[in-house]
């Protein structure tokens, strides 16, 4: 039902309504004109017939009672002078029946006409239909003048005239009206379509604008033309759009302010930290020579300064991602070598700590610095929260139908698996959130709490994905998948 409703669209309905109006007005006009013309045609014929019959009958010379033979001769003369066309004339007087035709009595004249003619000395006519042919029957009673009054003589002359020609004229008018109506309706289709268009165009504009708004282009406006209901609708739409844009703009500005604040705070912290971090060495070296309490305090300050520097650095990094200011400085690198360099520079070379499975010869287009952060964060995380040995595996995979639908795209997969108890199921969905602590008891980890969030952002910047899961052996497995776009990028 609703499908059916949808199929008969606004355009169809408008055009139908337009045609309906056109049809009704055409029909009404045609009918009225037809009626007037028909009346005129018939009136002309009737009036002519009645008055000419009266003229003829008044010239009748008759005696009373009528003399049949001479009456018949006179009727024949009247019949020849029929107006507007030939007619058959009948005369009735008492029981005398005379006619100009073959039959002395007409079968067309109705008793009502006879009755009226005898009862009332007035000329009268009646249109009758006999066997499909329309006839005009005229009754002309005769009177004689007696002094000031006139009295009926009892003689009534009738004329019977077929209306074939009038019928043909009337029918021709019907045909003309009908033949005129259809081209008229076809012509009405043009303004109907134009009108539908003028209504539908704003509707279409509105739909497009609404879709644009939906897809986030809040500066979409509709040109307001005229002052009709559609213009009102457009104006209302524009007002709503202005309001929406303002609200969203405010929200965005507030969000941007919050981000800028975080970024500014981190940035402001760097300058004092730069001075502090430069002298931590001095503190560490001289701590041994201080009183035990002072030494402990000094070492604490030194250590925490270092952590604070890492935290601020990570916060800066995150706020760069939030501001979409992070750049990918991609270079084509040997992935196995890059991972090895990461492990070596962090001194994770003991096989009891980190086991590697790094096949040679995989080259990918990566940002080496960011990839280093990813691997270092994952391995560092595994060593901190899981337990050694941590296995780092590298492989490539060809996905038949990747999420982007690119057939045969090759991706680099890096897996970091630890030998710990794994990640609790309820923590898995949140593991990449900022400052998320899987172990609630531990209030502050050795890291900044942003490591995995930064890892996620870095992988995303490469167009890849990172997943956390628990392996078959129970340890946590982090899988980084990055498209190997290097080959295409370097021809």
């Amino acid at each position, binding site marked *: 039902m609703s499908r059916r409703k949808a199929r008969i669209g606004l355009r169809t309905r408008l055009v139908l309504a337009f045609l309906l109006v056109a049809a009704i007005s055409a029909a009404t006009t045609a009918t009225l004109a037809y009626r007037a013309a028909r009346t005129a045609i018939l009136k002309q014929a009737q009036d002519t017939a009645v008055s000419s019959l009266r003229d003829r009958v008044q010239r009748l010379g008759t005696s009373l009672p009528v003399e049949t033979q001479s009456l018949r001769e006179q009727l024949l003369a009247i019949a020849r002078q029929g107006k507007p066309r030939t007619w058959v004339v009948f005369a009735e007087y008492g029981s005398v029946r005379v006619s100009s035709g073959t039959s002395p009595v007409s079968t067309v004249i109705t008793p009502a006409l006879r009755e009226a003619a005898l009862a009332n000395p007035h000329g009268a006519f009646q249109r009758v239909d006999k066997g499909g042919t329309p006839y005009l029957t005229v009754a002309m009673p005769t009177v004689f003048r007696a002094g000031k009054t006139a009295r009926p003589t009892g003689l009534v002359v009738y004329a019977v005239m077929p209306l074939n020609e009038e019928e043909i004229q009337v029918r021709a008018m019907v045909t003309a009206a009908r033949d005129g109506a259809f081209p008229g309706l076809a012509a009405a289709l043009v303004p109907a379509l134009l009108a539908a268009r003028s209504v539908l165009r704003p509707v279409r504009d509105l739909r497009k604008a609404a879709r644009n708004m939906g897809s986030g282009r809040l500066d979409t406006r509709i040109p307001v033309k005229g002052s009709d209901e559609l213009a009102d609708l457009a104006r209302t739409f524009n007002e709503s759009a202005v309001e929406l844009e303002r609200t969203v703009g405010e929200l965005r500005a507030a969000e941007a302010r919050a981000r800028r604040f975080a970024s500014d705070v981190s*940035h402001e912290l*760097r*300058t*004092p*930290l*730069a*001075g*502090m*971090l*430069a*002298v*931590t*060495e*001095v503190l560490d*070296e001289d701590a041994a020579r201080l009183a035990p309490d002072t030494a402990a305090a000094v070492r604490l300050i030194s250590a925490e300064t*270092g952590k604070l*520097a890492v935290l*601020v650095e990570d916060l*800066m990094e995150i706020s*760069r991602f939030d501001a979409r*200011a*992070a*750049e990918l*400085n991609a*270079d*084509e*690198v040997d992935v196995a*070598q*890059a991972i090895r*360099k*990461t492990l070596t*520079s962090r001194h994770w070379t003991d096989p009891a700590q980190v086991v590697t499975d790094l096949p040679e010869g995989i*080259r990918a287009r990566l940002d*080496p*610095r960011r*990839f*280093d952060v990813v691997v270092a964060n994952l391995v560092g995380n595994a060593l901190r929260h899981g337990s050694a040995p941590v296995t780092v595996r590298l492989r490539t995979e060809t996905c038949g139908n990747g999420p982007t639908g690119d057939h045969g795209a090759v991706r680099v997969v890096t897996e970091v698996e630890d030998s710990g108890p794994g990640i609790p199921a309820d923590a898995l969905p949140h593991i990449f959130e900022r400052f998320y602590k899987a172990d609630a008891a531990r209030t502050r980890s050795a890291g900044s709490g942003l490591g995995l969030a930064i890892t996620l952002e870095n992988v995303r910047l490469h167009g890849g994905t990172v997943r956390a899961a628990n392996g078959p052996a129970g340890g946590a497995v982090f899988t980084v998948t990055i498209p190997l776009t*290097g080959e295409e*990028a*370097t*021809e």
Partner: protein
Amino acid sequence: MPRVLLIEDDPSVREGIGLGLRRRGHEVRTTPTGEAGLAAIGEFRPDLLLLDLMLPGMNGVQVCRQVREAGQLPIIMLTARGDDFDVVIGLEAGADDYIVKPARTEVIEARIRAVLRRIEEPAGRAAVEFQGDLAIDRAGLNVAKAGERMALAPSELKLLLYLSAAPEQVFSRQQLLEQVWEHSYHGDARLVDACVRRLRNKIEDQPGSPRYIQTVRGFGYRFGPL
């Protein structure tokens, strides 16, 4: 021990870095502005300039350009943000390396040493090598093109010496970062790219289609073939 001039506007940073470096035996002079620093160069005759990019008045990049015009004093920029566009501008202006604040003294010192370190000479080579129009004097550490001596910044000279020591061998950016700048493998490849651009502008006839320092797409750079 090298003499280090530190131009830094923030007093605590100036004092902290100065303290740390002096503890490690460096002779350190600090100035709060670029103008004062430029004045101090002639008198103090430093071996290396540590230059904060954000300075009141004359900024770090301007100081860097002036120093480069005057000579080959090694310059290490101090910057607040490693990703900044300022870093690229500073490198283009002729800085040899940069350090992101905050940094530990040991990191700063390692950079200083790396910048000042001479490239190890391959044994048994002629003192002066001729490569095309270039005359490379490995002992005298200078390069002449068509008989004219070129003013190369320390990092530029080191890169040219390193690449020309093994002509036609391709080095990745990561390798060059490790070998020439002594950065980690994962350092900032923009250092290499900026240095290559500067070097090409000085030694190439047409920097747009280089002859000496050639790019091998997807791998890195090589010297020649001529």
